[in-house]
């Protein structure tokens, strides 16, 4: 308490000092070994693993807004690895294993909570597909069980399993190791750890061009001046088409708004994560108490971070169908982000026809869960110039060879 000359307290004088910053907000240098475009979860994780696993620390992470303010701030934080195809199970399970040790590795709390995920089946075809996916998961070393409606009720007592509703619950797949994490903490943890290893975090620095000479990328142009780069790694999510286009690289992406919402804070009522493909909603309860619900994408392309109201309306009806107890909950906040969707609902990670220019995009509606896994693999790809075995199946050339990784509908949720 520090009295002023008038004998009254100065407002704020008795507050504690501002805590230390988690990362250094850097001024851009003229050149870096690696420039990462996009300061979201994937960009930050890539920077961290480039430094930690490959000893490359002369890195700038460029972010046009504030760090992790795009889709990293807008997702529903669900983490799981119960994908159908071997290629997907490979990279998502790698991510899940990293999640399981990430708090210790980063030295930062992430509120990672392995509360399990239920993927509900509402039709005979759903049941067949789900059981098939459980078997495929087990063959890939991913924990998975098939639950009857009664067992679903044991895991999540508030799910309505009565048979006389429009889309009755006929069972569910269950992945006990799945869960949620606090998305902001994940970004901050990676940013802090990368910054401690020497990575520059440069915010409010929008990339406006890529310099390509003799088929090789040599630098980026930004709103804060040109920056030379040995390698450029894109991690720009919904804006990937725009940024890659600066180097003449076209990508099979369409950018759509994706919405989510939270309820007011409630007592703990929802112990797990519930997803339903058929009635399309996914719900968990955040640590603080909000019900967190995700919707589907808006059909039309858009770069606006807001979606149509009728999408929210449908999502709410789906939630009420499954959880009648939510009928009197109030919506606190809705928001949208821009997601980049590929034709096969699988990501694109790897090399481009421009030397030293790498892409990581197309994660569509499901990039958060992959954050540590793709950071690990993308860092390997950028450092060595060769795709990591786990992201090699997700190379851009699969659209020419036809070897797609078709996760549309197969991955336990509609995209």
């Amino acid at each position, binding site marked *: 308490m520090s009295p002023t000359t008038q004998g009254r307290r100065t407002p704020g004088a008795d507050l504690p000092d501002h805590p230390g910053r988690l990362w250094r907000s850097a001024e851009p240098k003229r050149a870096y070994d690696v420039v990462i475009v996009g300061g979201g979860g994937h960009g930050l994780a890539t920077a961290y693993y480039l430094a930690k696993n490959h000893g490359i620390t002369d890195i700038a992470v460029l972010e046009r807004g504030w760090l992790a303010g795009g889709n990293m701030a807008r997702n529903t934080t669900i983490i799981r690895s119960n994908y159908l195809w071997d290629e997907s199970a490979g990279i998502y399970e790698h991510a899940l294993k990293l999640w399981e040790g990430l708090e210790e590795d980063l030295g930062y709390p992430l509120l990672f909570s392995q509360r399990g995920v239920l993927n509900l089946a509402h039709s005979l075809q759903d049941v067949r597909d789900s059981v098939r996916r459980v078997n495929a998961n087990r063959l890939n070393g991913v924990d998975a069980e098939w639950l009857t409606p009664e067992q679903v009720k044991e895991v999540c007592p508030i799910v309505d399993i009565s048979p006389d509703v429009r889309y009755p619950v006929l069972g569910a797949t269950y992945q006990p190791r799945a869960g949620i994490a606090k998305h902001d903490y994940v970004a901050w943890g990676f940013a802090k750890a990368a910054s401690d290893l020497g990575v520059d975090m440069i915010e409010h620095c929008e990339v406006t061009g890529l310099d390509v000479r003799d088929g090789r990328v040599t630098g980026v142009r930004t709103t804060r001046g040109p920056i030379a780069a040995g390698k450029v790694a894109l991690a720009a999510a919904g804006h990937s088409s725009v940024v890659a286009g600066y180097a003449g690289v076209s990508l099979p992406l*369409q950018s759509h708004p994706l919405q989510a919402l939270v309820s007011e804070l409630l007592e703990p009522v929802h112990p797990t994560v519930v997803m339903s493909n058929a009635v399309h909603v996914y719900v968990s309860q955040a640590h603080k108490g909000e019900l967190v619900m995700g919707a589907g994408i808006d059909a039309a392309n858009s770069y606006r971070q807001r979606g149509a109201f009728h999408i929210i309306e449908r999502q709410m009806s789906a939630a009420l169908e499954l959880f009648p107890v939510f009928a009197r909950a109030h919506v606190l906040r809705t928001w949208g982000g821009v997601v980049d969707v590929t034709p096969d609902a699988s990501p694109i990670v790897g090399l481009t026809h421009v030397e030293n220019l790498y892409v990581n995009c197309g994660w569509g509606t499901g990039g958060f869960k992959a954050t540590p896994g793709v950071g690990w693999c993308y860092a390997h790809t950028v450092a060595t110039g060769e795709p990591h075995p786990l992201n090699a199946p997700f190379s851009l050339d699969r659209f020419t060879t036809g070897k797609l990784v078709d996760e549309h509908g197969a991955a336990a949720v509609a995209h």
Partner: protein
Amino acid sequence: MLLIPCPWCGPRDEAEFHYGGQAHVAYPENPAALSDEEWARYLFFRDNPKGLFAERWSHTAGCRRWFNAVRDTATNEIHAVYRVGEPRPVSA
């Protein structure tokens, strides 16, 4: 929510429409002659501009007819609507 001016029915709520993606994507004249790269481009690659985009809509809950629109994907503003078979308006 968009208010979409159907060329036949006038302005209607977005929920009445079905989206059809990029307009003016022609089927290859000689499909057998295409290379794998060209097939990939036809099948999987569509423009994804942040800005003006010529796209198809169908008024499924109205006249059930397809038409084209030019919309700015950065603002969602619709600059023009025109009938199938008509060229993209020069001004939009």
